[in-house]
């Protein structure tokens, strides 16, 4: 039988994600690298007590909609739907916005484990690469060190960090073929590329599925061995969520203002 990792619907793609599962979720900086439709499907399914592993705590769709992203859900949809018990995360909250996770942490509803970004990334890669644990100097002398074994290597204090495994990884890529080979687009590889293969089941949401052999073997970033399911985003999808329609709340307007501040004074220049 030809290998065929393509599944028919987003709901089917997440059908076996169970209550209490540990789920890695791709995404960084913007919605461009988020598996938005898989996250929507998971929220629809309504599993409970998830442990999530992610770069960010999520911003919610408003901030992405106003910037022109077509698919706008990030991991916030799991938080605000109350599906998460524990979040292992590098950037739980943001200066710009008070997100669902931050409120839930403050309310004691969600447990949080904060991890430096590089350590989180390396722990994910270790799970995929069969490395049980590793030592890095990052976090030495800070809150991150609390409760961790240390070792002096080359005269610097290193912390012992363990591989972090998951039951499922939800990732976003640009194109896939039926073997699960993936390519990404520009700066969107982020942790998606790292998570692929770090969970028992890796599910990739992609912009386009192409015929086997269409992806140049020199450009394939994630070899199919790491991917279990691929699911295609609808080509001519209407807005993928309702938020785009409703009035943007004032909390968001302020944060967007702050975001725009970061552009302040940018001289006009031709690309």
């Amino acid at each position, binding site marked *: 039988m030809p290998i065929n990792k393509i599944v028919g619907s987003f709901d089917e793609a997440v059908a076996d994600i169970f209550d209490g599962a540990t789920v890695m979720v791709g995404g*960084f*900086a*913007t919605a*461009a*690298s988020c598996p938005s439709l898989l996250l929507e499907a998971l929220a629809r399914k309504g599993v409970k007590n998830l442990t999530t592993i992610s*770069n*960010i705590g999520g911003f919610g769709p408003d901030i992405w909609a106003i*910037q*022109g*992203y077509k698919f706008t859900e990030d991991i916030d949809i799991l938080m605000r739907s109350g599906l998460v018990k524990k979040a292992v995360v*590098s*950037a*739980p*909250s*943001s*200066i710009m916005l008070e997100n669902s996770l931050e409120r839930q942490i403050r309310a004691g509803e969600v447990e949080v484990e*904060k*991890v*430096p*970004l*590089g*350590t989180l*990334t*390396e722990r*994910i*890669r270790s799970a995929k690469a069969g490395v049980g644990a590793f030592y*890095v*100097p*990052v*976090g*030495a*002398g*800070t*809150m*991150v060190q609390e409760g961790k074994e240390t070792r002096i290597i080359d005269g610097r204090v290193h912390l012992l960090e363990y591989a972090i495994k998951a039951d499922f990884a939800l990732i976003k890529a640009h194109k896939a073929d039926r073997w699960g080979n993936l390519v*990404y*687009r*520009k*700066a*969107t*590889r*982020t*942790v*998606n*590329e*790292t998570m692929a293969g770090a969970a028992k089941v890796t599910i990739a949401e992609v912009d386009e599925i192409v015929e086997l052999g269409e992806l140049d073997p020199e450009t394939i*970033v994630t070899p199919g061995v790491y991917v279990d399911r691929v699911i295609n985003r609808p080509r001519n999808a209407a807005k993928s969520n309702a938020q785009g329609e409703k009035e943007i709340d004032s909390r968001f307007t302020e944060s967007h203002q702050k*975001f*725009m501040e*970061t*552009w*302040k*004074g*940018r*001289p*006009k*220049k031709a*690309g």
Partner: protein
Amino acid sequence: MAEKEKLDRQTMALRVAKEFQDGDVVNLGLGIPVLASNFVPAGREVMFHTENGALGFGEITLPGEGDLDLTNASGQTVHPQPGMSFFGQAESLAMMRGGHIDVSVVGAFQVSEKGDLANWATPEKQLTIGGAMDLAEGAKRLIVAMNHITKESHCRVVKECTYPLTALECVDLIVTDIAVIEVTNQGLVLKEVAPGWSPEEVQSLTEPVLTIDTNCQEMTLM
């Protein structure tokens, strides 16, 4: 003294950018640091790095003009540029932790006289660790860009950080809205003051004792 003019964000960014040397690989944090990408001294070629996985891209685009798949770690779209490359986050953070970033510019809440950095959390609110600790440990040269004092007039250059630490003894240079201070094994050395500011005025807003460099001068901002 409260009336004295301090550098604005753009001018601080301009001063920071003067530190970039030819061929430097540079990572710029959120806020003032990222503005420095607009002021690379003429004739110098540097490669910008971003955590999400790109190297060698160009300046930040105007709002709404960029490719939404080509952003920096702050979520701002950036211009493509010849020589640019993309990679995944494991590679990107390996570059940071592994000492491949020549210059990192970050914001901060506090810097101690030993160069300890506190820039990821306040005692009240824990924000986002992100790549801050990786950069602080791994960058060959770490520059802090921040206002010299808080809105409440508290010193940010302090004897000991009271805010949660990012990393110990990692800061090399502090660029503020009134001074440029080098962190040395012999303590903090005041190298430059903002136009119209005296070393004594800077010292009065700084908790630890500053050594005034014999060549201490006014910042050149052109």
